[in-house]
């Protein structure tokens, strides 16, 4: 048991061991039922983001004027229309699946950009410190002290609201989270014995930072990343909802909610389903992040392992 969980934290990709590792992860996931359901929802979402447009692209764009604002749970038009149809008679189910790709792509791109830039700057600020570190922190304070949505609105107003600009704006507003976390952890880790030992034996700064310090910070960053993915998704949806994010013909869940707003009193399903998709995915991300925090923390992991010990 102890041996198996050990493989979770080591990085030896032996064939047999990696299989054990997957099993361990799955078992730890099974212990937390909410996180398990959340992981299933996220897997389905990733699948639909990857293959959705390829599978349902045609029915997502096909208009059927007879089915305009067709109500949900009505199977007379076929299973495609189970969630109803929008104002142009397009299947909402197909469109939600179709839109998942752009939604996920924007959030993933923004999160990865802010993760890379934030972590690098955080490593510099934490390891080097000094004037450069101080300057980085002050700029971070400024970015953090202003409501991100308002700033994003103004930036997207001045520059055109294209997908690339939405990604850049969202990435910039999220950099501080990674930066501050990385810096705080690096400052603590760099004074630990093993780092000093590596320094004494002559490891280069690069090796020290990327081989010794970064692997310790990584689990925290992954946890924050899952949380932040949810946040960025919400931010993109808000921007698109307000009409300054993603523009037609590109479609995200936020755009769909905005499009349905005009029909709120007559056809609630237009806004409800894409909104529910956003809510489910962000909630799942929160649950998985919660689970990750416990599972990657050696001090707390017993909470997930204990019930099995009782059975054995």
């Amino acid at each position: 048991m102890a041996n198996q969980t050990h493989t979770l934290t080591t990085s030896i990709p032996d064939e047999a061991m990696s299989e054990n590792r997957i099993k361990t992860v799955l078992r730890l996931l099974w212990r937390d039922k909410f996180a398990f359901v959340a992981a299933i929802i996220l897997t389905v979402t990733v699948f639909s983001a990857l293959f959705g447009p390829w599978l349902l692209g045609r029915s997502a764009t096909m208009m059927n004027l007879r089915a305009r604002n067709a109500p949900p749970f009505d199977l007379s038009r076929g299973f495609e229309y189970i969630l109803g149809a929008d104002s142009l008679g397009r299947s909402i189910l197909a469109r939600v699946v179709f839109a998942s790709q752009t939604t996920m792509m924007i959030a993933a791109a923004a999160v990865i950009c802010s993760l890379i830039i934030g972590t690098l700057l955080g490593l510099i600020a934490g390891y080097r410190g000094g004037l450069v570190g101080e300057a980085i922190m002050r700029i971070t304070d400024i970015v953090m002290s202003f409501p991100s949505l308002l700033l994003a609105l103004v930036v997207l107003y001045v520059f055109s609201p294209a997908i690339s600009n939405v990604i850049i704006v969202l990435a910039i507003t999220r950099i501080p989270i990674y930066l501050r976390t990385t810096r705080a952890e690096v400052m603590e880790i760099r004074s630990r014995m093993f780092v000093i030992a590596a320094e004494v034996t002559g490891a280069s700064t690069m090796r020290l930072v990327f081989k010794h310090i970064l692997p310790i910070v990584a689990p925290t960053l992954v946890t924050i990343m899952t949380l932040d993915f949810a946040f960025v998704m919400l931010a993109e949806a808000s921007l698109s909802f307000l009409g300054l994010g993603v523009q037609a013909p590109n479609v995200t869940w936020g755009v769909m909610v905005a499009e349905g707003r005009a029909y709120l009193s007559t056809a609630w399903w237009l806004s409800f389903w894409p909104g529910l998709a956003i809510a489910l995915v962000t909630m799942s991300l929160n649950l998985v992040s919660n689970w990750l925090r416990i599972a990657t923390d050696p001090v707390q992991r017993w909470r997930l392992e204990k019930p099995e010990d009782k059975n054995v």
Partner: protein
Amino acid sequence: MGFYLGKRAIWSGLSLFLLVVMVFFMARLTGSPADLYLPIDAPTSMREEFSRLHGFDQPVYVQFFDFIRGLLTLDFGQSLRQGRPALALVLEAMPTTLLLALYSITSALVIAIVTGALAAWRPNSVFDRIATLLSLIGASLPNFWIAIVGVLVFAVGLRLVPTSGTGSISQWILPVAVLAIRPCGLLVQVARSSMISVLSSAYVKTARAKGARGGRIIFVHALRNAMLPVITVAGDQAAGIINGAVIVETIFGFPGIGKLMIDSITYRDFAVIQAGVMVTAIAIFMLNVVIDIVYAVLDPRIRMN
């Protein structure tokens, strides 16, 4: 304490200045500011006339000093849409947003502290589990979706409250509730974990040994110490409340700063956008100072230093 506040004030002032610089150069980066201020279909002669009138044909540094001088004399220019000073429009809209934010954060704090404290009293009890799950759901639902579902259920379906406007008290219920849900979910989690750690400290055990009742221990002995992290997070949420206000005001037709900004963006009224950004930044700066003071009142260790 004074030194601490002074330092905060200097940094906030600096960030405010950087924001000013950013807004100024952003407006110039995209070509002539006349394009930003004037409607899209304005003829070339009108653009040139406008540029000359407002000094946009001057070198950039001259424009920058003019801009700063305008800011210092509180002159943000005229609103194109309404033909009135931009600042007046923003200041008219401000109280609505501030009240909305105040009601929301207050109700979120009260609910979160009570729920968090009761959940912490017996960790892993049924109440604790329900509270934790609900708080997680609350923290992850998108604002605009809650608002839309709220309108559908309570205004369209049950007809309990109106869908929009600000005339009566009943019109405030839904927007305040929508705006409070997200911070409330986060604050419950913070209040719960901070209460759990305080409840296990030695002085609480002493109070218990003396025979103090549960309610007294939570709300008299433990609450003050457990409040500190809650206040910190509530302060961080304040900027988030403004984010939420933009959406809530748009959906419920509230004449606050968020709706003003969105309307100005729709009608390309750049003077108002600029004034709105500045006034919001100043409001958040003042709010941070207030939070610092509250923090010092609650924590003597900060007051002494």
